[in-house]
């Protein structure tokens, strides 16, 4: 997937004119685990809607598997089943009488046979860790975390090759948050799909993703592995973001004269590096 110099402007030519994203270039390979980070209003949500053709860029090109998706005759519907998008608070899109039928909505729109639809729905619900006895419940009787999993399953059931999640853990407690993240992680391993995670929390994303894209004022500020991105922690702060706490501790230790690895991002790495540095002294 490739974004070529994408710009999107809201209400061009009026007083409400606003550049949501400007000149964004991105190359995304199959199987990558990417985190998109930026504070509120930095253009993250606008950006991801370009990936599956929900928004048409004011200028620039979106390419999927080498083809321009806004070319005449391009099948946007098939693109949308390849690129699954889970919106923020996805539980607000549930509408069916029971959980199972709601998850079937996506594959049904793809025009599959009944057996195939049910097989996919079952598989998707299993992958998000919902027990069989929930299938016939009304989605509105579930807890917040369960509803969200049903909604994610609804997109998964379409068997997308790319899964984009916009703040999948917003409004969940720490336990629910960890569960969702772990499930996304295992999903990626099981299905080998590309996952794009949108968030404003560095700490959450840093633990899982292999590549991090930082958005600021509608432009890509940094793009690289999390360790590398966190070395710019001062710039990140200026954007209203923060590096993980570990980064701060390591930098402070280094400043005080302890020779530690400032690129550590997990507690284990930090511990090892600190012990090593202390041992050397």
């Amino acid at each position, binding site marked *: 997937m490739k974004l070529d110099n994408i710009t999107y402007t809201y209400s061009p030519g*009026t*007083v409400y004119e606003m550049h949501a994203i400007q000149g964004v270039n991105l190359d995304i390979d199959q199987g990558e685990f990417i985190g998109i980070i930026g504070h509120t209003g930095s253009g993250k949500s606008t950006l991801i*809607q370009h990936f*599956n053709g*929900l928004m048409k860029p004011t200028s620039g090109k979106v390419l999927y598997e080498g083809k321009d998706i806004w070319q005449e005759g391009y099948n946007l*519907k098939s693109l*949308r*089943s390849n690129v*699954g*998008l889970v*919106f923020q608070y*996805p539980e*607000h*899109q*549930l*509408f069916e009488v029971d959980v199972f039928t709601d998850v079937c*909505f*996506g594959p*049904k*729109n*793809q025009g599959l046979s009944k057996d195939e639809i049910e097989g996919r729905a079952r598989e998707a619900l299993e992958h998000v860790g919902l027990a069989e006895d929930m299938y016939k419940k009304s989605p*509105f009787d579930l807890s917040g975390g369960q509803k969200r999993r049903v909604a994610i399953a*609804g*997109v998964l059931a*379409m068997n997308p090759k790319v899964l984009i999640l916009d703040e999948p853990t917003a409004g969940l407690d720490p336990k629910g948050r960890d569960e969702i993240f772990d499930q996304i992680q295992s999903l990626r391993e099981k299905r080998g799909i590309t996952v794009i995670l949108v968030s404003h929390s560095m700490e959450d994303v840093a633990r899982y993703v292999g590549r991090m894209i930082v958005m600021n004022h509608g432009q890509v500020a940094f793009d690289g592995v999390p360790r590398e991105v966190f070395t710019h922690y001062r710039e990140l702060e200026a954007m209203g973001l923060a590096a993980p706490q570990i980064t701060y501790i390591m930098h402070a230790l280094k400043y005080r004269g302890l020779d530690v690895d400032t690129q550590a991002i997990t507690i284990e790495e930090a511990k090892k590096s600190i012990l090593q540095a202390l041992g050397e002294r």
Partner: protein
Amino acid sequence: MLRDITIGQYYPADSIIHKLDPRVKFIATLLYLISLFLFHTYIGYILATVFLVVIIKLSKVPFRFIVKGMKAIVFILLITVVFNIFLTPGKVLAQWWIFKVTQEGLIQAGRMAIRLSYLIIGSSVMTLTTTPNQLTDGLERIMNPLKKIKVPVHEIAMMMSIALRFIPILMEETDKIMKAQIARGADFESGNLIKKVKSMVPLLVPLFISAFRRANDLAMAMEARCYHGGDNRTQMKPLVYKRQDFVAYAVVLCYFAASIGMCVIGW
């Protein structure tokens, strides 16, 4: 699609019209609408056009923006014009099967078209230059005397401002849910009427649920702030007439007197 509706939308700008008291604007709009139905001949409509153009120029709202709001009523306008052309009895100009085009019909249709479009433009100028809150404040003050006959004026005004406030929120919500369902392969455009209506279910169910949830939250938030209706409630920015408002009243009254005068002498 939904963004084309400009009725009830506010256009921020720094103009004399924006600064006027909402009561003045409301009464002026009402008088203007009445005047549209007083005129008999084109001389009257020239006066109405001049008045409207001057107001729009003063309001600094781009004309393009106002015309955009007309899109919503094009259909109604067309029906009115067609019915008037074919169904008004009078001197026949052209005839085809059972349809007759009469001279009176043409005149009547033109008149109705002008009246309807000016009606919409006139009222959009008011809503474009007045924030919904100002508008309901103004209405509440205008209707104040009705309190004596036990009309719940404050409650009506409050409901109106809440309803107006929620229009953009619900539109945004619709947009969001629509996109979420499109991402799941829903199709809102193709198919026949029955299929289209059916395809609305995945949109309407979540929309209603979210509307009720929002209403509940709002009621709770209002209660938590001890809201209990209009009795003894004071306003943060009470409406007070300024000099410009009296001048505006004078101008509008002159215009209205002129229209009545023209009506009486049959122009």
